[in-house]
């Protein structure tokens, strides 16, 4: 309980005005009437011990849309994170629709002696260096491909495209064969102990490569490394950025050019890239560089963007599917044929939703990662 009182203080929950804007915008509350961030905060502040201990703490998507709207800057998402860490200590865990397969993979990756065989995606045309200032942090992409083979998500192509794009701007990055998961899902699932082990391992290995600039195509990896590693394992001797941030600079300077096409495209802002890292313009600039004026934003975009419906492999169910169906319908209504994402998980979740029986045919839309779209439009 002491930790929870501390969490209420840290996140500014006491400043809550009880206005209910958080619940009004919350995508989960819209589909699941039993979930209400306002109620949770109000009860927690009023001293209700169960408010931050019951099952509803696992429903939050941690998408930060509520904090975006909160007039008092209450950090509900961080409150959730701290409450989950507390609940995890009591032996509680989120329900995962894959039997916690990903959490298990992450926990297995904490074993120091593990020698992963994760470099299978590297093809001979990709230029990778042994030693470089730049390091490409791949993330769990190889595992996604193995697990979601049936969905045909082809996430490895994101990794290959990333290296191709880096090569195109003259960067030959280091790729670590012994990279471990960044631990994002463990952190948000409350398993702080194992998260720290992964963090320490990754920081140590990155330091050993001597790289000073880390680039990743996964917004979750970037957020975890940039924002949460310093909080848990101290200051980092390297800079972390998302691929779109790096490429945008090169497009602006004219160093990077793409073949134009006239595909009608819209964009899904990943929560971690948008509301956590404030990267809104860069992916849009890049999309406009390949499809010009045929790029069209959805009605709810940028900091008002709606989450892809699941986070940290938790609580996928009818509520997630409702959020996903709504979001894909919104994407289709822009008149676009293609929904670009900048996060492998957004792509997986949307493609999974469209695979369901009963998914409305008129809402189906092609989903592709931004890195793949860009790499396939590179001027040779």
């Amino acid at each position, binding site marked *: 309980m002491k930790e929870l009182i501390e969490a209420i203080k840290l996140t500014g929950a006491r400043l809550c005005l009880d206005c209910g804007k958080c619940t009004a915008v919350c995508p989960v509350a819209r589909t699941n009437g039993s979930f209400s961030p306002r109620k949770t905060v109000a009860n927690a502040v009023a001293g209700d011990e169960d408010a931050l201990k019951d099952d509803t703490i696992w429903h939050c998507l941690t998408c930060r849309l509520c904090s975006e709207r909160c007039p008092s800057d209450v950090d509900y998402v961080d409150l959730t994170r701290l409450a989950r860490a507390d609940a995890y200590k009591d032996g509680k865990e989120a329900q995962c629709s894959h039997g916690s397969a990903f959490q298990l993979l992450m926990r297995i990756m904490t074993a120091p002696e*593990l020698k992963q065989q994760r470099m299978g995606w590297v093809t001979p045309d990709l230029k990778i260096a042994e030693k470089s200032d730049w390091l490409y942090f791949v993330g769990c992409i190889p595992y996604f491909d193995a697990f979601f083979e049936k969905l045909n998500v082809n996430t490895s192509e994101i990794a290959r495209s990333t290296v191709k794009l880096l090569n195109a701007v003259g960067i030959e990055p280091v790729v670590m064969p012994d990279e471990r998961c960044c631990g994002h899902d463990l952190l948000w699932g409350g398993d702080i102990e194992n998260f720290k082990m992964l963090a320490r391992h990754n920081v140590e290995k990155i330091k050993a490569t001597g790289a000073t600039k880390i680039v990743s195509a996964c917004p979750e990896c970037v957020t975890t490394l940039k924002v949460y590693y310093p909080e848990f394992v101290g200051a980092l001797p390297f800079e972390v950025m998302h691929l779109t941030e790096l490429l945008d600079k090169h497009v602006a300077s004219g160093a990077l050019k793409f073949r134009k096409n006239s595909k009608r495209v819209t964009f899904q802002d990943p929560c971690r890239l948008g509301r956590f890292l404030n990267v809104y313009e860069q992916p849009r600039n890049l999309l406009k560089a390949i499809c010009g004026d045929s790029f069209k934003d959805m009605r709810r975009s940028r900091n008002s963007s709606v989450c892809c419906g699941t986070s940290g492999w938790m609580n996928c169910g009818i509520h997630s599917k409702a959020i996903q169906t709504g979001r894909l319908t919104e994407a289709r209504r822009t008149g676009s044929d293609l929904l670009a994402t900048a996060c492998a998980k957004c792509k997986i979740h949307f493609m999974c939703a469209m695979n369901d029986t009963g998914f409305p045919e008129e809402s189906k839309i092609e989903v592709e990662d931004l890195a793949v779209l860009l790499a396939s439009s590179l001027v040779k």
Partner: protein
Amino acid sequence: MKKEKQASGTPKARPAAKKVGATAGTGAPKPAASKKENPLKSAPTDAAPVEAATASKGAAAGGARFEPRIVAFVCEWCGDGQEADGANGPGAGGTAVRFVHVMCSGRVQPSMVLKAFELGADGVIVCGCRPGKCHYYFGNERQAEMFETSKKLVSLLGLEADRLRLEWIPGPDGRTLGAVLDEFTEKVRRVGPSPLRK
């Protein structure tokens, strides 16, 4: 060994793993002080503290052979009643196979295989009914599909392919569960201890 019958057949790991080995030597025993209860760790040492201590002395002297920890997910319909064969089989002496009874091999998701490895299993085997013989018509076909995923994940993690196996019982040559387990145990013994052993 007296055979205990699982009442409901719920697909859940039994709290105390059943031992097949006639003699109770176990792999490298460690002090039982662990934060979370690990069934793979506690069961053998609890059951045979004396023998375990002897085994560790033997290992210190460099003479003991490696006893792998095996987790066997066994379908109730094909594997039921056959553990006794494993107990008395020729090569089973000294090996503790932990059985996890499931109603159908189709229940064994990749996450269950991963969980066994996470807890420190040296080998994991899934046993189901022969093609066309599934009690639920297609459970074993599902297992065959899921097993491909399990195999890929295990290989990405860098664990040897020999640590994971899918077997239909009885085998094409009529092999029983006991014989299959004996042979699998021997294979895992040759691969050596898992890097995830705690």
